[in-house]
């Protein structure tokens, strides 16, 4: 196989430091997120805001997501961001510029999915509905940390 490659390529390969790893780093960087490949972009960029999504009962009291839905808050948040991205993609708009209606559209899809996997027997007694909320944390200009009242994205009666 080596004989079929151009000499300059063989020479470059032989001089590359940590060559097998370097090649793999390039591949992972280029392929990005295609399981099992990944460039591991977690916390690679951030700004003054970060949000979580969570599911609560009809009164807004949080439900233990791992226990009730077998899938937690961060997974729901990623699914929500993906759905919101798909809604905004035709106009290639930033998710930060989304409207409440668009966020609610994405939220309804996610709540529908999570509802499908809900273990009803794990719900606290008296639960008659579930709600998906988004809570945003912010670093203000004065250097203080704050968080807004959670935004209702979707709700579903049981």
């Amino acid at each position, binding site marked *: 196989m080596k004989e079929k490659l151009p000499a300059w390529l063989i020479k470059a390969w032989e001089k*590359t*430091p*940590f*060559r*097998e*790893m370097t090649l*793999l*780093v390039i591949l*992972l*960087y280029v392929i990005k*997120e*295609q*399981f*099992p*490949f990944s*460039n*591991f*972009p*977690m*916390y*690679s*960029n*951030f*700004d*003054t805001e*970060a949000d*979580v999504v*969570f*599911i609560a009962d009809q009164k807004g009291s*949080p*439900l*233990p*997501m*791992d*226990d009730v*839905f*077998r*899938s*937690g*808050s*961060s*997974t*729901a*948040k*990623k*699914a929500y961001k*993906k*759905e919101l991205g798909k809604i905004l993609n035709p106009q290639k708009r930033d998710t930060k510029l989304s409207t409440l209606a668009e966020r609610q559209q994405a939220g309804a*899809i996610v709540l529908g*999915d999570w509802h*499908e*996997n809900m273990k009803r027997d794990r719900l606290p007694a008296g639960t008659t509905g579930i709600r998906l909320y988004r*809570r945003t*944390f*912010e*670093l203000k200009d004065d*250097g*203080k*940390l704050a*968080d807004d009242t959670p935004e209702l994205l979707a709700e579903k009666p049981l």
Partner: protein
Amino acid sequence: MNDALRAPHRPWWQPGPFQYSKVEMLVMRALFAALLFSSIKWETAPYKTQRNPTGLAHFFDFTWLSQHPPGFIWQAITVVGLVIYVLGFLPAIGLAPICAFAVMIGTLVTSKAMHHSWQAITLIALAQFIVYAWAARKGGFFRPSIEVHRLATWWSTVVFAAAYVVCGIVKLVNSDFLWIHKVPYLSVQLLKSNWSSYYDTLQPVASWLPKVTQAIVDYPNLARLFFGAGLLVELLGFVVLINRKWAFWGGLAIIGLHLSISKVMDLHFEVHMGLAFIFLVNISGIGRMRRGEP
């Protein structure tokens, strides 16, 4: 012949497989097999859609796994495969079932929402499978030579190191090389990740959280030093390939990094810590490392 004499001389920046002993690699394979099996999300019932397809999900529908989660028989076949892999016989055949399930289930789960717990371990399993399958073509099918086992182990560390280096590079590129500068903004990420854990379990967030997050904003340079050290561990991940000592200390640094992330951000990477412990700290090779063996 002594391993030190047999090891080919290479410059430190072009390292090759360490001269692992048979016992070291037996221990590594046993621990890796246990970690790999336990890391797979065998409970596939909740994953009914591939709404956000990734990898092979672009071409294949794996949602049948939610209707038919791999039960006792398939898991038993996987365990039998892993046992013969650990013993060093027919490793390509032994790894095939676990590689298939790791890829299929991992693809299905991450096609619902992306997670980063399984990529490194799945890639390591695939790398070992490819090494053993490649060697099988040259006659090492039933019982590969010690050099083939060393190569498979070596590729495991190469994949692991690459995962950390690319992670560090992506941090620099995605942040326009301002990652260190932006560290004070991590305070909101800390709030987010800790509250996210709260919504998973309803266990109260740590009482120190408000103080620590505010301290990150109030003492930005101290925070940059702390989190910058983590970035450095990722970017310098390649040093674990140099020799046993670098691997050992690099492995401990990576475990330390993950333990501090677990404490501060409530984000847990047990699989990554396990991989660092198995392939880098290499508990059964500490004596050889201390003697400076290659």
